[in-house]
């Protein structure tokens, strides 16, 4: 190998490095001890990242004909890009520059100057050995398909789809249920302003349904995702609705005539009924009903067809089959929302056992004017108005038995419930809370308002809800047993109705969905963002973005914000038209590949496929994310990883152990 001409640049970083590392000695050492490895120039400078420091490097590259550069300074995560650019500007391939960390990994974490300087020498030695094996690389460029897939038609997905479509780019919006709207469509009022949810949501839904740049695919699910950023191929199954949407006018006569009523576990949260042919709710978008084949009398017995008989448009089509659609998109936004914690799991609160214990979602339907009780707050018998109501916070949240996290919305939601009960029934309302969490704009003001309305607040975790009475006042009541931690006493509070503010949980299938789209879930099951603070809408997989509760519990304003933010990120990508990808990739040397296929199943991105004709494995460079697992696993050493090759890692190891300096034990 012809010897490289290497420049070593040691940064003082003011006193950040120079305070603990003897930079002059280090520089002199690098120039001497590593000369036989090709180091032709070694310099130190106060701030290497400054324009003067960068000029120093650029000048040497030009005048000393350097072929490699090692900068010993801060973490590559801080200034790798800076120094690569400086080298590129001076005419050197940027990937021939290596930044080694002697600040975060040396001067800031060690105190002994001699030991720190010695370690810094090893670190530079490692960098020099490594950079010798670097190869010039070019970033890969992939074109960006301007179409976008949005998965989930709740408010997050609606917002994201609308922003992108309004900018003139096409959006495919896929929703599992027959209508978009998500959980927000189930609510009556929204905190803290008590806007009617339907009044602010349904106009947006209508715009989605009629938007020229949106293809709305309801009653559909994503089956498969292939490809990579800029060029995803998505397979969507559009379930048979048995209603021809070209003919249907959305008159809803079929719903009236359908003789089969079933409990609606989704939209009505199990509190109301729908027909076997149904729309989720009257303002559904699209307006077309679907036939639930599992409950349809015709599909069960071969008789009935009441809907078909009464449909003047002739839109009922019992022969319809599932459609498989292939979509090509450049970016994907996942806004798949949340599931409500199954309150039956908190057995001591009696949900499912004691009739008048309701979940928060049930109560939303109870207060909704379009709900099963027309908005009347009544007990499970459908007529009695409660005289006292207990609202229990943190059911399934902040509880080591179930979910450690705070579900964010429950405090405000419970305050809203308290207000609505008070306003509509005049009942006594008790809130049982652990901590009151009313952060964000106008939330605490709402809390003050509910306090002034005479709602009782009892701090503590409810031990039990029981119908066993100890006193005459408790007879025929639900008794809430709690330690009131503000007075340090056990209390029993009899009420007519109990509302459980149940936790928000990740969708039951979030793991499968994450796997399908090549992203990860946290321990709790929420989709993981690229960075919790600085990049909360992107994911580690390029081209896949997340929004709304799928990323973690959040209220409507935050959900809308995140939906819009995800859209903005996608629009940015689309405007770029093509995108540069870091050239950290694995490659197969065909001549060495034995075709054993060990690597094929190791790749999490299915980037490795087997070429049956050549009997070798082939890596799709655009799919490969560069983790290097296959490189490590290949028994034939047929796979090499650019920028992290075996040679580079081994050389760095060699350098770190100072084997390039030491006399070998045996020559």
């Amino acid at each position, binding site marked *: 190998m012809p010897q490289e001409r290497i420049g070593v640049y040691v940064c003082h970083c003011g006193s950040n490095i120079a305070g603990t590392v003897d930079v002059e000695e280090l520089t002199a050492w690098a120039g001497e001890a590593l000369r036989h490895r090709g180091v032709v120039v070694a310099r130190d400078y106060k701030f290497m990242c400054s324009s003067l420091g960068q000029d120093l490097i650029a000048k040497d590259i030009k005048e000393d004909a350097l072929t490699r550069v090692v900068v010993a300074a801060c*973490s*590559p*995560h801080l200034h790798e890009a800076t120094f690569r650019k400086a080298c590129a500007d001076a005419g050197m391939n940027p990937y021939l520059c290596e930044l080694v*960390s002697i*600040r*975060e*990994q*040396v001067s*800031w*974490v*060690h*105190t*002994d100057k001699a*030991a*720190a300087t*010695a*370690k810094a020498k*090893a*670190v530079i030695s*490692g960098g020099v050995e490594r950079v010798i094996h670097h190869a010039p690389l070019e970033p890969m460029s992939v074109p960006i398909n301007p179409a976008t897939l949005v998965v989930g038609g709740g408010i997050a997905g609606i917002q994201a789809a609308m922003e992108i479509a309004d900018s003139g780019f096409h959006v495919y919006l896929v929703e599992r249920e027959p209508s978009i709207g998500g959980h927000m469509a189930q609510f009556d009022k929204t905190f803290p302003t008590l806007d009617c949810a339907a009044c602010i949501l349904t106009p947006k839904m209508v715009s989605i349904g009629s938007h020229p740049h949106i293809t709305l695919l309801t009653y559909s699910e994503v089956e498969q995702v292939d490809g990579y950023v800029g060029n995803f191929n998505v397979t969507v199954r559009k379930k048979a609705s048995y209603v021809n949407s070209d003919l249907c006018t959305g008159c809803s006569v079929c719903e009236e005539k359908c003789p089969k009523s079933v409990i609606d576990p989704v939209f009505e949260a199990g509190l109301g009924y729908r027909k076997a042919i149904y729309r989720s709710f009257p303002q559904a978008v699209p307006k077309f009903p679907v036939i639930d084949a599992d409950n349809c009398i015709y599909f069960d017995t071969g008789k009935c067809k009441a809907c078909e008989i009464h449909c003047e448009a002739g839109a009922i089509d019992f022969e319809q089959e599932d459609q498989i659609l292939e979509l090509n998109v450049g970016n994907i936004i996942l806004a798949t929302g949340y599931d409500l914690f199954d309150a039956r799991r908190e057995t001591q609160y009696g949900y499912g056992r004691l009739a008048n214990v309701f979940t928060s979602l049930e109560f939303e339907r109870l207060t909704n004017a379009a709900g099963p009780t027309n908005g009347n707050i009544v007990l499970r018998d459908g007529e009695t108005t409660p005289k006292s109501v207990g609202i229990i916070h943190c059911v399934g949240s902040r509880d080591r038995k179930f979910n450690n996290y705070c579900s964010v919305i429950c405090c405000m939601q419970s305050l809203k419930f308290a207000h609505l009960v008070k306003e509509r029934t005049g009942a006594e309302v008790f809130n049982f809370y652990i901590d009151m969490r009313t952060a964000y704009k106008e939330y605490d003001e709402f809390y003050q308002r509910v306090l002034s309305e005479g709602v009782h607040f009892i701090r503590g975790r409810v031990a039990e809800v029981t119908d066993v009475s100890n006193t005459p006042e408790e007879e025929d009541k639900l008794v809430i047993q709690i330690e009131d931690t503000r007075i340090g006493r056990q209390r029993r509070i009899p009420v007519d109705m109990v509302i459980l503010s149940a936790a928000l949980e990740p969708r039951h299938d979030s793991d499968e969905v994450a*796997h399908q789209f*090549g992203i*990860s*879930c*946290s*321990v709790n099951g929420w989709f*993981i963002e690229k960075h919790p603070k600085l990049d909360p809408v992107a994911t*580690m997989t390029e081209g896949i973005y997340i929004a709304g509760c799928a990323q973690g519990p959040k209220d409507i304003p935050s959900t809308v914000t995140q939906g819009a933010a995800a859209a903005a990120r996608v629009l940015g990508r689309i405007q770029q038209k093509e995108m540069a990808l870091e050239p*950290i990739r694995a490659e197969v*040397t065909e*001549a*060495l590949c034995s075709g054993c296929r060990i690597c094929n199943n*190791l790749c*999490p*991105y299915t980037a490795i496929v087997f070429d049956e004709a050549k009997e070798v494995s082939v890596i799709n460079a655009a799919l490969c*994310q*560069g*983790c*290097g*697992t296959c*490189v*490590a*696993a290949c028994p*034939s*050493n047929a796979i090499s*990883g650019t920028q*992290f090759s*075996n*040679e580079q*890692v*081994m050389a*760095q*190891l*060699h350098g*770190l*152990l100072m*084997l390039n300096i030491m006399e*070998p*034990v*045996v020559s």
Partner: protein
Amino acid sequence: MNNEQFEPVIIGFTCNWCSYRAADLAGTARVKYPPNVRLIRLMCSGRIDPTFVLQAFAGGADGVLITGCHPGECHYLEQNLKALRRTMLLQRTVAQFGIEPERVRLVWASAAEGVYLANAITEMVEEIRALGPLNWPQVAALNGKSHVLTPAIASVVVSEELVEAAI
């Protein structure tokens, strides 16, 4: 052996997305740990080739620290589990070589766990210090062997030549 305290050399393999950033964070937070660990950045703990570890020992390291994202938080979905698998096998293998398996240690550290990583490093340095030097190069020399194992990469070069010759 003189009376000076034995200062082990430990090679640490880090994941670009979690443990390397944890090391950065330890620095930013000025958390102190002994200077015996020298880190190598990989894109993923799944990149760990067992040869790297053996080569580190052969080159004079007294211990090897492998660090990656917590299970379930891998940047590349689940490649850290492959690192786990390999590490467990490797610990059994080095034990058969007569090397204490504690010299290979696997630590999960997220990008937020700077203090945790620093503590894990400190703990490992103490443990290896108690174990004493590995001295593989010297032992190998006594047995008349070179201090470096036949590297996997050398075999690649050879086989590439062979392939070319064959063609």
